[in-house]
């Protein structure tokens, strides 16, 4: 006979895990939703830097990522560290124009595996400036042996997420790296 407390404890654990799932997914959705209004407000105000999307928020939308072929639209936050990534893909720019965007494979970058060479990417700044990129290559790297060179000469757009996209176990070493180059071929 299994004791009632054991079941209660297990049920609690199950709900805890599911709540975590819902929390992570929910944060991703709500973050995007809240930032959308802050982004729109800043666009109306003529491109001044966006206000906090919710009171006390540490993140601000920094850019808008748009993939026409996949009908994807994401607001990107400043900084690619873990707290930020919950709300949206994080962006960082190297001194020589190397732009890095990282996001979680299970939320905002679930689509990254669908990007193919030649796909177009649009990156919109708060001021309304849109830069067009074309996917140049996708590859899988091992994060234990490969790291990112933020000083790499730009303009270069690198997008990173975990690989495999639908792995069950979290925290694997592999990363999917998609790099894109500007379409206009501008050099500086």
């Amino acid at each position, binding site marked *: *006979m*299994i004791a*009632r407390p054991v*079941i209660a404890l*297990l*049920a609690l654990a*199950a*709900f*805890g*895990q*599911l709540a*975590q*799932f819902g929390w*992570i*997914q929910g944060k*991703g959705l709500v973050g995007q939703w809240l930032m959308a209004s802050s982004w729109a407000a800043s666009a109306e105000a003529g491109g001044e830097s966006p206000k906090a999307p919710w009171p006390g928020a540490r993140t601000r939308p920094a850019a808008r990522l748009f993939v026409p072929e996949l009908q994807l639209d994401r607001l990107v936050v400043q900084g*690619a560290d*873990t707290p930020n*990534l*919950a709300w949206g893909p*994080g962006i960082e720019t*190297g001194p020589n124009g190397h732009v*890095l965007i*990282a*996001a*979680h*494979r*299970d939320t905002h*970058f679930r689509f990254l595996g669908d990007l193919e060479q030649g796909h177009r990417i649009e990156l919109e700044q708060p001021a309304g400036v849109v830069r067009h990129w074309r996917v*140049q*290559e996708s*590859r*899988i*790297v*091992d*994060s*234990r*042996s*490969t*790291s*990112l*060179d*933020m*000083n*790499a*000469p730009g303009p*270069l757009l*690198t997008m*990173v997420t*975990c690989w495999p996209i*639908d*792995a069950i*176990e*979290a*925290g*694997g070493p592999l*990363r999917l790296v998609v*790099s894109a*180059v500007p379409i206009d071929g501008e050099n*500086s």
Partner: protein
Amino acid sequence: MKFPRTRFLVMFVLAAASSIQAQTRAGLQLVGESSAVTAVTQATEVDIRVTGLLARTTVTQRFTNHTEGWTEGRYVFPLPDGASVDELRITIGERVIEGEVREKADARQVFEQARAQGQTAGLVEQHTDNLFSTSLTNIAPGEDIVVTIGFGQTVEYRHGRFTLRFPTTTLPRFENGQGADARTLANAPPAPTYTIGAPPRLTMAVHLAAGFELAGVQSLHHAIEIQGRGSDRIIELAEPELAAGRDFELVWTARDEDRLQGALFVEQMRGQAHALLMLLPPREFKPVALRRELILVIDRSGSMQGEAFEQAREAIRLALDRIDHDDRFNVIAFSNTALPLFDGPVAATRANLDQAYRFVEQLTADGGTEIDAAMGLAMAGLPGVGDNRSDSRGDSRGGNLGYLRQIVFATDGAVANEAQVLERIDREIGDSRLFAIGIGHGVNDAFLNRAARRGHGTTTLIKDPRDIAGRMSELLVQLESPVLEDLQIDWPVPVDTSAETWPERIPDLYAGQPLMVLARLDGPASAIDRGSVRATGFRDLEFVEMEWPMRDYFSATGVARAWAQARIEGLADRPEGSMDAQLRHDERLLTALEYRIVSPLTSLVAVDRTPRRTEAAKLQRVAVAGAAPADRNAAALTAMPATDAGSLEAGLRGLSILAIVLLMIFNRRFNRLERARRETDTGDAAGHAGEQA
């Protein structure tokens, strides 16, 4: 019947041998895993776009691997002096691989790694000033591979003629025995030994936007077809099959201008304005009768044998023809040793000149190129001569004691001990001016330019015997007509900053020979558009001042990279001991990396990230564009971000625990029901028993 057949065989072998020799210059040698095999250069396409004084060249070469195995190869090619390579693209079928600029050793390492891992990769390296190589590896059997290289260069302008050069031949460097500087050869890659196949086909298109009404356009060594009108032309080669083996030279002219003028070109890069000031002197200028001391140096080494030596001899004769009776002169011939005609400069009397003509007539070409001793002799003038031409702003210039000493040396520049010669020029040039005449095709013009730059002079290249009279008279007229001396240029810069100018030492301005000065102004163009560029100097001993307002500049791409290129070269040109070697190295490297150009310190490397020779399953430890191996010791490398929120794991874990919980609950319920049923069963049984009792 036997004799003609033998003769035919001999002829055939000779023809084959010479055709193989002719091909060594322009092929890609592929080396397979087992034995050396070759692939053929199917075609080379050259596309040049000229805007004003700047030219951007794209060279596209298509190679086919005709062998059964995976192959690799190296292709050595010369570029015009001062060219800066900034683009490498490899196209294999649909895939395009872009190259990136890295430190030379680093780039080679990336390339070697890709090579070992079976990835297609390319590498562009600079070996000497104008000798580059492209290496390719892991080309699949039967595969077509297209390599594109892009570089910028400046158009040469002198005596009213604009000249664009594209070399198609390369000159093997002449190495003399002992005491030679082995570095030049050690750095050069071994050239491919042989290639089989049809002659390389060269197609070429030049899009010329001169920026002014053109008077004429002509190619000096190739038949061309010209279209267009006004200031724009499109030029193509008429006979692509016959194009290789001769340097391509395109010359265009504008309507004549007889006054000194300048033009300012600006390009903004990395937030800073880069400026190019071009001074166009009048075609003719007659200054006060300045007395000159002309030292004519002629190279009679073995490499000059034949036509080249005849041209050099003719050049010296033409120079002798123009010597004025109150000038002084000397002639020095050199091969293994320097042979002066007179012990020192002598008056240009009829007798002395006749002796000089006879001396030149008797010279033959033979032996090594020991240029150093001859230069030493040429620069060592008579005591007291030259001391008067000091920096004291012309007060003693042209005085009774002073002669303007001009050293003219005619050579093919095929010397091994370049560094030694350059050091001597630094040490001993004093107030002499050094003018180089480069003779023949594939001349080492990088060395000649360096020597002339250090000697405050210029270089004249004579490729074709037909040009000799024209080019020489241009040079000699130039020598007689210095337009501006002690030139100084002030750049408009934001407060508390300064402009970095190349060349550091601004040479004199001569008739027919323009001057280009490159500067990086510390600030964006918008910050200085109210200022102006100001040039001052002495013309015929009189102070002259000129000004160009910044708002009138022409914007031009290529200025910034031209500046970077000039800086990298200029820093290397600085005499030994004038700056810390490590600092010099770091500055040059940084400039090359920042402006993304191939230099003696940096290379372009392109790696196809798809592993092809090995199994795809194997994890690759190769840097992606913008990513680098983790074990590289650079501070700028950041670890890959954690890109897994763990929601899937949590969700799945939650679901499975939930399933267990549900199972448990179901199990409990089931057990309870079972028990209840059993209890009712036993209760009924007891009841029946009681009734019976």
